[in-house]
């Protein structure tokens, strides 16, 4: 072996033929290896497996897999009307949840970056649901949203409104899961917006105020554009989150009534773990992956065009 030129290190120890660069590379790989192993075993591996499963007819009980090509995709996209119904539900859920969540988060953040007594208390109150157990949240809301006896409807009755049976009527069930999900998760986006607002120097507001800008003009012309990068991040993660929603649907409605809240992630679970159509479920998972990826790319592109 050719000896590399010495870099003059007295601390080379037992492997003097290694250059400094090689030693550093080895150390880097050494530190990376645990995470890399985890990534390969628990993420990349299953991902490749799902691609493979999606091309098979695989029965979980008999453990027999038959290669069927793109049959599962064909089934989902062109033959099974359930699929498009489920996609429609997911889109409705996202279209309802994302704007509502973001608008509410921004309003709360704007209010809770003002200085007043109790501001920390209110931030805690609005963030608390984020760290609350999804199960507890669902149980409480199922109780509150019961038919006539439910707390929400009793309150509505108090002001002369006869509320629907929230979780038993398909359209209202969708409204109910969206709103309860927003209340649970809005605190996270609120915190992100609060952090972004606090990073905007107060001098901007003072300067704009001196130049005659109204509060609305300051918001529209200064604050909102400066929140752009944060808004994009929030929009992307909230959209992805809304397409992946599972626990909330599982606990609140189980996809019902009349499949009115049957969304994509829950449908995949049903197909894979209740009906054991692993191949079909894997194909659905791949389609969902493509949808979410496409939405993210579109949002990023829109943002880039904006700036």
């Amino acid at each position, binding site marked *: 072996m050719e000896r590399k030129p010495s870099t003059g290190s007295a601390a080379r120890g037992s492997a003097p033929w290694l250059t400094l660069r090689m030693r550093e590379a080895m150390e880097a790989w050494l530190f990376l290896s645990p995470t890399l192993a985890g990534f390969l075993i628990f993420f990349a591996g299953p991902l490749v497996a799902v691609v493979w499963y999606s091309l098979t007819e695989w029965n979980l009980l008999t453990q027999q897999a038959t290669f069927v090509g793109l049959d599962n995709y064909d089934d989902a996209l062109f033959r099974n009307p359930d699929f498009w119904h489920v996609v429609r539900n997911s889109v409705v859920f996202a279209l309802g949840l994302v704007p509502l969540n973001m608008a509410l988060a921004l309003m709360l953040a704007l209010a809770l970056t003002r200085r007043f007594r109790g501001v920390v208390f209110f931030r805690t109150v609005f963030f608390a649901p984020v760290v609350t157990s999804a199960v507890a949240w669902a149980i409480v809301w199922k109780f509150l949203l019961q038919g006539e006896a439910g707390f929400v409807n009793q309150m509505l009755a108090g002001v002369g409104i006869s509320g629907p049976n929230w979780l038993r009527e398909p359209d209202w069930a969708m409204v109910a899961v969206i709103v309860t999900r927003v209340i649970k998760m809005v605190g996270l986006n609120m915190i992100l917006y609060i952090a972004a607002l606090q990073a905007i*120097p107060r001098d*901007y507001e*003072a300067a704009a*105020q001196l*130049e005659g*800008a109204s509060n609305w003009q300051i918001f529209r012309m200064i604050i909102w554009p400066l929140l*752009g990068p944060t808004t994009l991040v929030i929009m992307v993660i909230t959209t992805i989150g809304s397409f992946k929603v599972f626990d909330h649907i599982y606990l609140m409605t189980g996809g019902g009534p009349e499949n009115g809240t049957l969304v994509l992630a829950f449908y995949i679970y049903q197909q894979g773990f209740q009906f054991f159509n692993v191949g079909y479920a894997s194909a659905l998972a791949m389609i969902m992956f493509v949808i979410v990826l496409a939405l993210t790319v579109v949002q990023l592109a829109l943002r880039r065009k904006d700036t």
Partner: protein
Amino acid sequence: MSSLTLRNIQKRFGRVDVIRGVDLDVADGEFIVFVGPSGCGKSTLLRMVAGLEDITSGELLIGKRVVNEVQPAKRGVAMVFQSYALYPHLNVRDNMGFGLKVRKVVAAEREKRIGEAAALLKLDALLERFPRELSGGQRQRVAIGRAIVGNPDVFLFDEPLSNLDAELRVHMRSEIAALHKRLGNTMIYVTHDQIEAMTLADRIVVLRDGLVEQVGSPRELYERPDNLFVAQFIGSPKMNILPVSSAAALGPAPENAASVGVRPEHLRIVAPGEGAVSGKMAIGEYTGASSLLHVGLDNGETSLVVHEGDAPEPDSPVGLTAAAHHLHFFDQHGRACRKTN
């Protein structure tokens, strides 16, 4: 253009009195500098003039109008911030035109005024750039340009040069002075740098703990400080303060004098035993044109001396003297003893 009047202005944040009663008359077209150590309330006072802080009590007049309750935008003032406060998502043109736009000035007029200000500040070539693409000095000029286009009666500057390096600071200082000459507006300028204050001001307002210590021209403050604080704050290196007995050899002191002040540039080194006081040479700091000598006096105090020529050897005994007319006497409360002559 406008005059400005402060009548017993006070500001309280909770239980803390930040401004404790300031009276001041600023003439139309005057360049006034607020100076003082950090925390003295100078920036707060400026922000109260701008309307960014409300006034706890007292009266603020711009021209003949009481403006305590007038919105910032309607006071006819423009402010240049220490941070510049340029909107990062707008280019230079839009930054400068922001105020005109929100005030619904028509586009043609807006362009004309931006063009004039840009020409005045040599910003013509930078109008399409964003703040992040500008150097510190250029940002500073844009901030001034933004103030100019609004055509305000009064300009307010809040430590505008403190983020610049030393060389640029000197340059921008002269640009601001030239700008004042050309525009002739009333300007109020806050700084903690007494050189900036001395070079720019028609009159300096020295503030400490929310109170005015002295108002006067730079020369007045340097030559006739009202009290020990002003005496030591204005002038660099700062004035030496010694017990009044130190000056006994130089002539009679006022009866009520407790201490005597003499500026380092007015002290001269003489042979040991010949001056008013004697001591021992400690350190000599060579600064080029002169040296700053630290002399340990026999009474235990240290005196600073600005000395031209070769410095005495360290530890060598020296005498110090000064001309009698360069002595400043202060009573036991630190107030200047005016020679009644």
